[in-house]
């Protein structure tokens, strides 16, 4: 009884003091999930992703979840995320054999045997959410932009469909949505992460090979991970400020 009254007083006090949205936000902060607060502040976050190549089993769950969640066209040339399979001769890193049937949507049919002097592994790909995005630089009208929390987004109501950004992306992460004739790309499930959820691909990954990271959140385990692992970004020579970090990335991957 006493407890209830104390709760009631505390809540009423907070309501009086903070009122409305602020109180909901305070609740979220107390739960340790500040992202879930309705008054999400873009300046408080800096999003990226950790991909652990060693953990990826090539199941294609991420590709399917992404297409489902983001209504990505099912065509085999429209992918916000896809998975590549590498088959690398131990002595010839320059010429890996790579495939990605339907972007890995249907998983990978068995093709290589272990013990033939080669290494085989999967590499999930998605927009690298570059901090110095070449795609953003070239957009003639600013329809694609970097949000203050570090996500490269597209305003589909503004995009001309000129495709310059598709040419400018070194990683092949952009495509034209044939239904809207505008460009599309991974938004890092912006509609989810701003509500405190993780991305659809990360949620669907059975091995935690991909993990959403908030580089501005001191409590995010990403800091510990980056400190204790040798990570790499794709095509570092492009100097795009990529925020998708790969652990265990082989030199043959491009």
């Amino acid at each position: 009884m006493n407890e209830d009254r104390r709760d009631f007083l505390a809540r009423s006090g907070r309501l009086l003091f903070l009122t409305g949205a602020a109180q909901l936000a305070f609740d979220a902060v107390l739960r340790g999930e500040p992202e879930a607060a309705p008054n999400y502040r873009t300046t408080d976050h800096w999003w990226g992703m950790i991909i652990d190549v060693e953990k990826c089993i090539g199941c294609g769950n991420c590709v399917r979840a992404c297409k489902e969640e983001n209504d990505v066209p099912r065509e085999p040339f429209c992918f916000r995320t896809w998975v590549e399979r590498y088959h690398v001769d131990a002595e010839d890193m320059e010429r890996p054999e790579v495939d990605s049937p339907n972007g890995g949507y249907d998983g990978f049919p068995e093709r290589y045997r272990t013990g033939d002097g080669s290494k085989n592994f999967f590499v999930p790909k998605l927009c690298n959410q570059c901090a110095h995005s070449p795609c953003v630089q070239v957009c003639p009208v600013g329809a694609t932009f970097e949000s203050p929390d570090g996500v490269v987004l597209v305003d589909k109501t503004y995009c001309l469909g000129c495709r310059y950004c598709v040419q400018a992306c070194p990683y092949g992460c952009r495509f034209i949505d044939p239904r809207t004739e505008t460009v599309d790309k991974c938004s890092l499930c912006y509609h989810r992460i701003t509500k405190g959820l993780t991305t659809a691909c990360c949620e669907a990954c059975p091995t935690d090979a991909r993990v959403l990271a908030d580089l501005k959140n001191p409590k995010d385990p990403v800091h510990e991970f980056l400190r204790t692992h040798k990570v790499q970004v794709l095509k570092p020579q492009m100097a795009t400020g990529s925020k998708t970090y790969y652990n265990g990335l082989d030199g043959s991957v491009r």
Partner: protein
Amino acid sequence: MESILHGVEGYMYPNEMELQWSILIVLYPYITGLVAGAFILASLERVFRVESVKPTYRLALLTALAFLLVAPLPLQLHLGHPERSLEMYLTPHTSSAMAMFGFVYLWYLMVVLVLEIWLDYRQDIVRLARTATGPLRHVYRLMTLGSYDVSEEALRLDDRAGYVITLVGIPSAFLLHGYVGFIFGSVKANPWWSTPLMPIVFLFSAIVSGIATVMLLYMAVTRLRGREIDMRCVDTIARYLFYAFIIDFSLEMLDLIHRVYEADESFHTLDFMVKTRLYFPHILVQIVLGTLLPLGLLALTQLLKLTEGARRGTYAAAGLLTLVGIFAMRWNVVIGGQLFSKSFLGYTTYKMQFATREGLLPALVLMILPFVILWVLVKLLPPWVDEKAAEQPAA
């Protein structure tokens, strides 16, 4: 899935299998190149006082205008949302090379070309506004912009203003086409495009193609009109074509040698592409048929004492081959730059369609359109200096 994978060899990133820029984007640098080249030929007479090319001065300006009017159409047709293209003027993204297109274009069209043509033709326009009959009279009256002063004083002012505009026009023509080269040359993701030589190679190939076009047009039109071709004029133009072509070819070879010698990470991929998929358009059409052959023909006219008839034939052949070669160059840049994967592990094929929005048919129409416009312009504003007093516009 099968049709998508058809023509794909090795590994392409899944989003790369379809080409983004079609034949329409090949036309864009081709057409703007003709504009810049024709203008630079016109300015030879005006600024550098090369008197012998005078018979082509006005024709070159009208040619430049006819092509410039068509230049934005392939871009417009290619856009997924052409209705939004005005946003490039209203809310341009200042870091985008493409966003500057509208401004460079408008500057060139309105400030340089239209103004220069108007000033040069003003005396004729006033005369025609007074003498023409029927609805054309109103067109000419509109074109006078209310200025009927053709006193000597006024004409001298026109001439000075025209001179200044040509002076401004030369760097503007360089800007127009150098800038088109920059659109490609600044894409660091694409090693086939990314080179600081791109704007300058584009510029010189533009000059080459523009000069060749005006030379051919002058010869064809003069013959059609049953007049004598001014050989001193054509010889001079052909000589300039030869010089410009040598610079253009040297720059392209410099680029090629640099790539081969440096042999960076992209080299094997590009080398293989040039030797296979791009062999026909690049080695055969662009370099052998479209560069070495016309250069050889032009060199012959410089070295040997040919008869007038032989020179005319040689110039015509060299001019036509040049235009084919420069078109192949644009093709190889735009299409070639999309045939290989940015993973450097595979290749795709350009499947050109015919009667679609970005197919061959609209491309052909867009290539014929400038000639139709030019025909109208020539009818409206006869460029024949020598006999302009006798010439009456067709009603």
